[in-house]
């Protein structure tokens, strides 16, 4: 195990996991001196009946200060301010966020406003602007993917001023994250597949990126193991309680890994594809992950090879010659996409050319690839990728991922 010359690692969030983890919330709130939480969620989560399950679990010792289910899919400053008003009007003393990335971001934004008594959220944007504890925040993720229940970042958009505000601080971390199998049980197979691949991309990118360290590595290895073992299983059989819990824990482990070691070209190109074409993040991750590994192969072969045992288990490991272990990892991930594609009746995309919107229209036309390649140059994930990636490199990877052909590694510029 390699000890880097310098590293930092931090995950302060208390993790409470189980089939009945929600029932522990009242006691956890009491420990933090809170008893009147505001529940922040979105319409989809509420409609799926998940908020009801949470509310039922809160019965004892807790007064619910309000339930706000109007978080939009894209976090919004106006909503943040409105929810902060709700928090104050009802004299709440904690926030419970139930949902995915946007709900978590919104809850973090509300927490800044109510804790700092902020009128202008912008004043707290950037790194290091927050320097004291905020109000208790309990995160309940409803997808096993984003890892935002353990990340210290929040993105809030000001749609009026067309501004995106980025907040980074350890004080934004939730105090507690609740991983309860009931929260993901009703997730449809197609969503399960793509959020699961997002989680896998966190574990894998966290393992090969430049900021990797021994602790992020250990989290990645455990995550890769659980996600590879359970993702196809729960996509096929959504009511698999044990599988759902394992995926929730795996995604959380992956979230802890990448929030410390950062992510690379897969997220770099994925963010750009999302921004240019509106493709959901998880799909971008599923499509790009094998290509990101191939692109970095010449720099990270040995490191990628270490993922084989946790991913595939002993039999495959034994049968694979040492020199081919890293390539086997890539082909196993391709196989996962293939399996998920079959299980979801073709909805899970394997290549960009396969990604279609509701009306069956291609979401990533080939001619926008140059635009994506250019946009990717301005995404922060490029810093942490092992190999440099300029415009031509990005385009090379995107074209291969579009066609669904393995990357021609002889075309990668090597220093």
């Amino acid at each position, binding site marked *: 195990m390699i*000890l880097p010359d*310098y590293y930092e690692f931090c995950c302060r969030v208390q993790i409470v996991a*189980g089939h009945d983890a929600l029932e522990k919330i009242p006691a956890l709130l009491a420990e933090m001196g809170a008893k009147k939480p505001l529940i922040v969620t979105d319409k989809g989560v509420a409609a799926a009946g998940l908020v009801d399950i949470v509310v039922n679990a809160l019965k004892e010792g807790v007064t619910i200060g309000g339930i706000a289910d109007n978080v939009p899919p894209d976090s919004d400053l106006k909503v943040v301010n409105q929810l902060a008003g709700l928090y104050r009007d009802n004299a709440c003393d904690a926030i419970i966020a139930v949902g995915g990335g946007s709900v978590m971001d919104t809850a973090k934004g509300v927490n800044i406003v109510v804790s700092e008594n902020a009128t202008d959220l912008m004043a707290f944007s950037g790194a290091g602007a927050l320097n004291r504890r905020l109000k208790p925040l309990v995160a309940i993720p409803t997808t096993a993917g984003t890892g935002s229940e353990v990340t210290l970042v929040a993105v809030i958009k000001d749609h009026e001023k067309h501004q995106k505000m980025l907040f980074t601080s350890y004080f934004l971390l939730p105090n507690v994250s609740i991983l309860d199998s009931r929260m993901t049980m009703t997730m449809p197979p197609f969503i399960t597949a793509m959020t699961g691949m997002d989680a896998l991309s966190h574990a894998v990118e966290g393992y090969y990126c430049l900021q990797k360290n021994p*602790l992020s590595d250990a989290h990645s290895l455990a995550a890769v193991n659980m996600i590879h073992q359970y993702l196809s299983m729960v996509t096929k059989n959504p009511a698999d309680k044990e599988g759902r819990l394992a995926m929730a824990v795996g995604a959380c482990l992956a979230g802890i890994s990448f929030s410390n070691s950062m992510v690379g070209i897969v997220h770099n190109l994925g963010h750009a594809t999302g921004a240019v074409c509106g493709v959901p993040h998880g799909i971008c991750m599923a499509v790009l992950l094998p290509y990101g590994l191939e692109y970095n192969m010449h720099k990270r072969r040995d490191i990628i090879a270490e993922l084989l045992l946790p991913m595939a288990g002993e039999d495959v490991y034994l049968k694979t010659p040492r020199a081919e272990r890293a390539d086997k990892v890539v082909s196993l991930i391709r196989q996962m996409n293939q399996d998920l594609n079959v299980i979801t009746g073709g909805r899970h995309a394997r290549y960009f050319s396969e990604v279609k919107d509701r009306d069956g229209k291609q979401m990533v036309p080939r001619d926008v690839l140059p635009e994506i390649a250019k946009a990717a140059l301005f995404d922060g994930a490029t810093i942490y990728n092992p190999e440099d990636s300029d415009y031509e490199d990005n385009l090379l990877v995107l074209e291969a991922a579009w066609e669904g052909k393995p990357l021609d590694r002889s075309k990668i510029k090597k220093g």
Partner: protein
Amino acid sequence: MDLTNGFAFICPFKTNSGNKALENLPVELAGLNACKPLIITSRKLAGGSAIGTLKNAFGDSGMTFGVFDEVTETADLNVVEQIRDIFIKGQYDSIIALGGGVIVDVAKIVNLAVSQKVADARQLSTATAIRDPLGPFVVIPTAAATGMETSKYASLHGISFVAVHLMPDLVILDPRLTRAKDGKAVAEAGFAAFGRILEADVAPGKNPLMHAYAFTALRFLRENLAEAVTKRCNKKASLAVANAVAMSGCVISNTDQTVLHRLGKVFQNIVHVHPGMIIGMCLYPFLDDQIKKDRSLLSNLLLTLGGDDKYVFMPEDGRPGAALREIYEFSYEIYAALKGKMPPTIREAGIQQYLMDDVLEVINQEPDGAYLRTIIDRVGGSSIKA
């Protein structure tokens, strides 16, 4: 790992480890909203040069900080009260503990006293409730660290406190400070960490988050402890050991498996030997019992200690035994390197009869006292008695 019964896990501290880690202190303190820290340390126990290095790390930050460097092995609540008074009068806003063992126990309790605004620290007792988060607290372990610095435990003269809030916000591991001066001390710290983590990691209730820390720390120790003991110039090996020792504090704060830990503690309190020495002795008999109880729990240990290839190429039923051999080799290398300076049995440690009597008396009061006794018997404890 079986997740059916659920689990909870927390590790509240951030770790900064490596080259020039100390120099980040001013920035880190600012992030904790602290600008005037009080350093609690000991000229005698932590050493003048360590204190000098820390002072220098404040560089051109323009910060003002206090240094209390008079903590001794026998420190008690009177010292805590003395420091509490200094803290209040000097209007400090955060605490930095430099060193290991008693220094950090004192610092944790000072932090408790000033954060909960007690009028007199001497009133603190085991019954004191610790509800809210305490003030900014940084631990900077030296090679003298025992592993408990980063844990939720603090104890001083028989008064003990347990609370997650006692754990530091930040742990800084700097190779200039973690370099071992004395091979035996490193071995003791390493053994203490190894044993405490091991017993948590072979227990049925372990969870994947704790295992991530356990895995990292055990492998670091397996790969670096012997090197750190024999080659004191190897900064990297000592830093890896210090990393593992710091992680052990997190692991022990998340487990209720504490057979080895308690054995070490009893001897530490009564005989005043390092708990690592006792844990090192008891490692093998303890694992021998575990293997009889449930072989599968030790199987994964081979993966942690031996790596992928050793694990995979060993047939399933040979793995627990191979794990034991790894541990045997691991301990043997260290005992051999210390050339008799580290006694492998209680008999060889030369612990006097009347002290052993006291030890056994305390152990008999533990709920699993009868079992603990069998371990002591096997490491030569009873033969003194006979």
